[in-house]
């Protein structure tokens, strides 16, 4: 197997386009996942009876092969980016939900009671006490979900929205490994970069944790 390194500079603009395309599927998926997981996690945290049900459902969704999710969404959303984003959102849910519930669980009861004793309503306690304290654990989930989403985008190449995954299909059909190597490398780099951005965001958002480290 020989890799044609000259191929890389020749296709620079294509690679940039595919990378951006890749991101515009993965990033909305994580954001929507978070938007759905946060309220569900609050419910799962407050209502013990619903916790097992919600976590169980998200675990079951996780066992469906990703390619099948995309294909099954086709009759609903068609050959659009929406299909790719929806499929990925379903996958990010399991990680985001589990971590957010764990994060909320990790807030000591005494802290929560102190907040109530100071006269804070449940919503205020949630927004100003529980969520900030749970933030590091939630962010750990966001990091895992983001890296996972970036690597899974390539599966959506079967429906034409695979971003860098298009390079895998291309190399496979032409029996030409160079674009496949390019796709794998760029996908890895993208995941690494996204993770670094999230670590930075977390560092900027949690000044109270910095002095300890």
């Amino acid at each position, binding site marked *: 197997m020989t890799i044609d390194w000259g191929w890389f500079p020749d296709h620079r603009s294509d690679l940039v386009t595919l990378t951006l395309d890749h991101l515009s599927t993965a990033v909305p998926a994580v954001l929507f996942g978070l938007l759905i997981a946060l309220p569900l996690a609050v419910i799962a945290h407050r209502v013990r009876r619903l916790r097992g049900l919600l976590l169980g459902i998200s675990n079951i969704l996780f066992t469906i092969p990703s390619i099948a999710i995309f294909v099954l969404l086709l009759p609903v959303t068609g050959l659009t980016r929406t299909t790719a984003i929806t499929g990925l959102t379903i996958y990010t849910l399991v990680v985001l939900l589990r971590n957010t519930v764990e994060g909320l669980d990790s807030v000591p009861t005494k802290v929560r009671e102190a907040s109530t004793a100071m006269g804070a309503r449940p919503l205020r306690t949630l927004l100003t006490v529980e969520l900030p304290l749970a933030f590091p654990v939630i962010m750990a989930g966001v990091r895992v979900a983001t890296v996972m989403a970036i690597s899974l985008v390539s599966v959506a190449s079967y429906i034409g929205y695979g971003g860098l995954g298009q390079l*895998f299909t291309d190399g496979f059909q032409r029996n030409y490994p160079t674009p496949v190597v390019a796709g794998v490398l760029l996908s890895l780099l993208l995941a690494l970069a996204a993770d670094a951005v999230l670590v930075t965001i977390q560092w900027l958002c949690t000044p109270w944790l910095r002095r300890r480290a």
Partner: protein
Amino acid sequence: MLELLQNLLRWLTSGSQWSGPDGIATRLLEHLQYSLLATLVAAAIALPVGLLIGHTGRGAFLAINLSGFGRALPTVGLVTLVFLASGLSMWPVYVSLVALAVPVIVTNTYAGMAAVDPEVRDAARGQGMRWYQVLFQVELPLALPLIMTGLRLACVQVVATATIAAYVSFGGLGRYVFDGLAQRDLVQVLGGAVLVAVLAIALDLALAGVQRLLFRNRPPRAHAH
């Protein structure tokens, strides 16, 4: 929607669908074979590595980053690459499934070992236990719940991903997904997906059962992922 579900039920329950060389029974066994072999190979590689890192405390950085790398590696790309390198063989399937499972098992094994109370470890050493006795009689039993969690997680992911075998023209339940995709036969895709999910959940429950048998005499403790 209702019609689709009725067709799915008919597809899943028809006798002719279950028998023959491309029947569900054969595909299920193929899928099980790919998944179990890949998980076993991954465990044979990952367990010693995770135990070693956990016991010596060296290479923790590697263990943590390995999991990130494993998650970031696009499986479709890896399968395609190994396929182009090795030609028509089972290598692409097993390499990518093992690559998927190893990081999960290593990090969970390491996490289990790291969670062992250092005082317990010191007490074992203080009693004159050799390193292998500390490892196998003290650390391993204490770390076992998290190790099992890692194995279960890896197994579920491997079963869901073994669908990819059909992409490189092999069998398994992925056949229904890819053939259905090519034939625009949604019922077949849905049937394949349901069977994969059921298999993954069944294996997970079976491993949970094993875990419960192993810890019959233990007080319950919290699980981490």
